[in-house]
């Protein structure tokens, strides 16, 4: 069996992106299970020393392509390199971050290699598959697990016949963990001579404004999160008040974002951020799988909901059967009077 490859994104500051390190960690454990090697690909400019950030995650080979034209990211040259590399190396599995970059490039790669791609996986597991119709057993496939259409169901997607098996995963879904500070692998520079056509550089970047991450929900220990049931932008202000008081951040469900109660950067769930805070207060959130996929590992969950049967209540430690606009002010009042 061939190896697992992780595409490593380079941030504005010239480091490997968190999401890529998280995927290297996952890649390492999948590689151990399959008894194969873990390989990383870095494409960028001035990559000298970048291997020091990568090897400790247990990487056996780093493929590098270093050229001033490769940063900032444009699709053409990165795709050209990946397609060529994968045609030569025939990876078993390839992982991309489900970021602006990963979701731009992964589909092009899958299209060129005529293989399957599953976006926004919330879990990746190795397992077998029996095709009863063809009486065939496939060993050690990558189960690409994600909530699916309409919520309330979780689909396990497989690619029995085609390779590589490609998946994207959002930042924060996997945990990053160093394997060994002095893990040693090999650097393999990728030969970029004569591989490009003019069309690969058709896109010219003329201006860029990239901000450092402003809202830091991912690392917040307390999250007050609002759903459609909060009802209005005004009521959402109550959540901001409580979050500020507790030193936390405000999150939101997709329905709340769609309704314009909160900006998309605050969305929690499969297509938003994954969080694991100490305390998650779910206000007027029903608890569709796409939402709970992003918060069910919170240590303590409080649900405030007018419907005592809301699905979120099943995973809550405390359920308050009542209306957000009644309950939150009471919490604020008690906290103001009793803290410190």
């Amino acid at each position: 069996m061939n190896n697992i490859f992780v595409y490593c994104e380079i941030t504005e500051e010239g480091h490997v992106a968190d999401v890529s390190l998280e995927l290297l960690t996952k890649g390492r454990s999948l590689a151990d299970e399959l008894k194969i090697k873990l390989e990383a690909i870095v494409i960028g400019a001035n990559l000298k020393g970048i291997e020091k950030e990568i090897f400790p995650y247990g990487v056996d080979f780093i493929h590098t392509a270093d050229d001033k034209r490769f940063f900032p990211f444009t699709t053409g040259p990165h795709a050209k390199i990946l397609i060529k590399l994968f045609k030569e190396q025939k990876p078993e599995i390839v992982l991309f971050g489900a970021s602006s970059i990963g979701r731009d490039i992964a589909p092009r790669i899958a299209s060129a290699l005529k293989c399957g791609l599953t976006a926004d996986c919330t879990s990746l597991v190795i397992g077998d598959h029996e095709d009863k119709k063809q009486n065939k057993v496939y060993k050690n496939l990558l189960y690409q697990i994600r909530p699916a259409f309409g919520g309330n169901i979780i689909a396990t997607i497989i690619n029995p016949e085609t390779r590589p098996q490609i998946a994207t995963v959002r930042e924060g879904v996997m945990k990053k963990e160093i394997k060994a500070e002095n893990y040693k692998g090999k650097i393999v520079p990728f030969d970029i001579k004569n591989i490009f056509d003019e069309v690969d550089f058709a896109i010219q970047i003329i201006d860029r404004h990239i901000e450092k991450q402003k809202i830091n929900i991912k690392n917040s220990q307390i999250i007050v999160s609002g759903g459609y049931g909060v009802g209005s932008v005004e009521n959402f202000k109550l959540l901001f008040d409580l979050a500020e008081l507790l030193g936390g951040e405000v999150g939101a469900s997709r329905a709340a974002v769609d309704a314009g109660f909160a900006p998309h950067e605050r969305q929690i769930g499969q297509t938003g951020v994954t969080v694991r805070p100490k305390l998650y207060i779910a206000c007027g959130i029903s608890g569709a799988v796409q939402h709970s996929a992003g918060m069910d590992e919170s240590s303590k969950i409080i649900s405030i909901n007018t419907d005592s049967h809301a699905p979120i209540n099943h995973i809550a430690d405390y359920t308050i059967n009542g209306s957000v606009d009644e309950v939150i002010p009471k919490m604020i009042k008690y906290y103001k009077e009793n803290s410190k």
Partner: protein
Amino acid sequence: MSFKIIVLAKQVPDTRNVGKDAMKADGTVNRAALPAIYNPEDLNALEFALRVKDQIKDAEVIVVTMGPFRAAEIIRESIYRGADKGFLLTDRKFAGSDTLATSYAIALAIKKLAPYHLVVAGRQAIDGDTAQVGPQTAEKLGLPQVTYAEELVAVTQKDITIKRRLERGVETVKSSFPLAVTVHGSAADCRPRNAKRLMKYKHAKTLTELQNETKDYTHLYNERPYLNIEEWTVEDIDADVEALGLSGSPTKVKTIQNVVFQSKDSKALGTSNEEINDLMKELLDSHIIG
């Protein structure tokens, strides 16, 4: 030569309004309970295309959609809002296609419409949020791509300047043609239906729709050829059937699982001052807050 802009638009179930009745008792999705709508970001894509058309002489906007017969609604809606015409890819053999097979079929249809300048897709369709078909189609056509377009900054016959919306910022890029663009939901909303166009094209129909009419309108459609919405089958785009539908789709759904939440032992509280205060006290005492 006219300037050809191709828009990819999809009809999707309105997953944003998944209510309780959207799930059947056996845990499967009740599609009938979800209205079919124009995929929201494809409306942004249509507007993007129409804005290009507004600035280029002799530009033409053509909508391509793949789906069941009723997806002709998407083409009519596009025409009401300003598109010039549309093609419906419809064939049972397309059914079950994943994004790879879909992009294969759509790319073949676009090749039939060549030469073209721009292919504009939505960023993603809300039924799966995969955001794959746009870039996959671009790859099959050998086109450079600009994803997450938020604003048309400038366009001439020769090149186009586009502002993109990224996770943490914006980027402005310039490209020559031909080019593929995917449009982000933060881009301009689509213009409404135009009353005159609505009158003129109200009866635009596909052959399949005409055959379901009780009266014979053939003569009317011969007189007014612009009312015909063309349907394309697998043969019309010269597709390899093996590369379509389930056989052309490398991704298979192995299992679908109902989510059964492992119920925690949760404490149920009411909204009385006492109950809320006790909870807050407990959180403070255990240093979860404070």
